[in-house]
């Protein structure tokens, strides 16, 4: 083989490799991403019913209840506008606490309860996942507008 042909073979192989890797990466991506929804969006039924997704917000104070098996916990998550009940079986991360931000991954049941497969951990008390921070702000502002318009009507 001449040098030129060799180079063509190598370039060809590289291209095939790149094309293969891209196809593989993108097709696998579709089944492995999980979207984020705020409690308000879930209330408005924007969430998928048959796929895993993430929900995030603040844990409503005094909503944490441990079930009799000792491993299942129930708590409510809010974005200050809507509330979603969450059920999780397993050990909660260290920094999980009421009134703090939380992100859980799982799917929603027919009973409207979000069954979490995973409650995401964080390493710093003061850290707020950006998705949660975004939805909290908007919900909070909308909530305020609602309140003020409500009081104006009175």
């Amino acid at each position, binding site marked *: *083989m001449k040098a030129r042909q060799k180079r063509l073979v190598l370039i060809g192989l590289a291209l095939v490799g790149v094309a293969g890797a891209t196809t593989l990466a993108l097709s696998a991506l579709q089944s492995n991403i*999980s979207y984020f929804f705020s409690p308000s969006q879930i209330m408005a039924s924007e969430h998928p019913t048959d796929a895993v997704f993430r929900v995030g917000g603040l844990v409503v104070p005094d909503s944490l209840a441990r079930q009799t098996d000792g491993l299942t916990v129930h708590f409510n998550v809010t974005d200050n506008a809507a509330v979603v009940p969450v059920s999780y079986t397993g050990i909660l991360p260290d920094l999980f606490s009421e009134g703090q931000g939380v992100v859980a991954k799982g799917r929603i049941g027919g009973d409207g309860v979000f069954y979490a497969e995973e409650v995401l951990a964080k390493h710093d008390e003061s850290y707020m996942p950006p998705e949660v921070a975004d939805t909290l702000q908007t919900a909070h502002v909308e909530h305020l507008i609602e309140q003020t318009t409500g009081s104006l009507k009175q």
Partner: protein
Amino acid sequence: MIPELGHLALILALLLAIAQAGFPLIGSLTGHRPWMAMARPLAYGQLAFVAIAFAALADAFLISDFSVLYVSQHSNTLLPDIYKFSAVWGGHEGSLLLWALMLAGWGAAVATFSRNLPLPVVARVISVLGLVAIGFLLFMLLTSNPFERHFPVPPEGRDLNPLLQDFGLAVHPPMLYMGYVGFSVAFAFAIAALIGGKLDAAWARWSRPWTLVAWVFLTIGIALGSWWAYYELGWGGWWFWDPVENASLMPWLVGTALIHSLAVTEKRAAFKSWTVLLAISAFSLSLLGTFLVRSGVLTSVHAFATDPARGLFILIFLCLVIGGSLSLYAWRAPQVAEGGRFGLVSRESALLVNNLLFVAFTVLVLFGTLAPLIYEAFDLGKISVGFPWFNKMFLALAPFLALLLGIGPLARWKQDDPWRLTRLLKTAFVLSIAIMAIGNLPIVSGGAAWVPVGLALATWLVVAHLHLLRERLQHKQAGWPRALLADLGGNGRSFYAMVIAHLGVAVFIVGVTMVSNHEIEKDVRMSPGDSHELAGYRFEFLGARKVDGPNYIADQGHFLVYRGKRQVAELFPEKRAYLGGGMPMTEAAIDAGVFRDIYVSLGEGVGGGDWALRLYYKPYVRWIWMGAVLMALGGAIAVSDRRYRNARARRSAPAGVLDAKA
């Protein structure tokens, strides 16, 4: 007073960095020797001032000066002294200072160990390091000054994040940063070569040991991080494909490609432009890692509270570095002479494919890490990419890499005979197939298809490298023990270094394969006196009691672990509440072994002395880190190869003369 001195020292270091970036470079372009000769003293000066700043901050921590905002946020009078010191880099500002200190340290090291290099090259390398230092010092002074004071002075600090109060995490960031920052030296050599327009084998030989040292530190840093996550976070995993982990993995992948490509450039003067591109990418990815960690644009378990101004600064810095170096590359690279030609079956081809695989994997990891940003930018929703995706990508590429790793080192440079290789690898192939058959037995594989594949690939690697050893030693006339000794004392070290590092890969493969497919994890609720069976081990819970630590109180569980009738371990996992910030933390208890770890972590008390807890059985998990240690050891031995020292000894006399004249 001392914090102000530290601040002043930082400002002076910035001024020196500006001089360091300017004078030697201009001198090297105009041929003005005295200006070039300023490079070394300026590099030492910068190290001195950054070290003063670092010492000032360390002092503020050790005397608990809470009038310094950063100290009051990351320390506490109850903190043990060793963690008061490691708390210096426990937060954003301090870790940047550590980064700057290391950058200055690398600069001074280049100044010291470059006596054999031509002065213009040294001047340019140190100038480029000065440019990088300007970026980081400006960043620190403008957005993240660690010496900022605040009033009123709080009587007590907020405490260091308990997760960081641990030996593993006290040493993990310095190691990781040594690696990150070390790639700036490889980057500086590449840029210096581009500026000088001289990319040759000599350039590769100069930059090779530096790149290797950086790679060794990064390898150890990543392994330490993985080990720490395993024992400290109490969830038993060793890698999560978290954005911050990926940020450290990407420079490592490109760095690994780079050390292999540098070998080709040194030995065969080929791949020159490609090597430069890799050096630029490795450092750019280190910067990108910093950006991702510090800007908080991605959701990550590692993310700490952040400030958007900082993210913006690093983003601009990143664009300048990448844009600037790529423009320089585009301008200079076409002038680079073509390297040695090589055949389709040759060591060069094998290393080329190795490089392509590493780069492909880097691109995939980069894509997966940035996908949430891409989706958000196109308004496609807020997504996260799950770790199964990354695992899939890894499994799609890694086996090819392992296969190639058995062939490449046996192949000859320039041109090899495919039949010769086939003959050589026959035994390795047969043995691998045999192991695959054994691995496929249900008792070994447990029904997992990857177990036989992983074990076969590890066998393939080991046998191929044994062949390689035999090939090298059988041609020596003096008999193999003497040949081995001669090799180890002389120029042969890098060969054994390669074998050790590659065997590390085999050990790593075994660890990953076994632990991923055979680990068992169980969340249970136990009352005192309860027993639970897991993987042939019986865990007996004797109850929990309160214990006091230096700066925390803890519930300490007491477990006995039996295998059959025999007691194999006594474990004391803890759930701690830190007094400073009141943060809870799980301290898992692990009985470590070469072939398996047994792991208990306490969840929470659920009343009546009962606990929710997690039991793990982790076979071969240590092999993952042993593999990484072997890889790092290989890298370290390669650096000690006499080839690099000889070059120094030979050249030191004339370089000294030049210095004297200058």
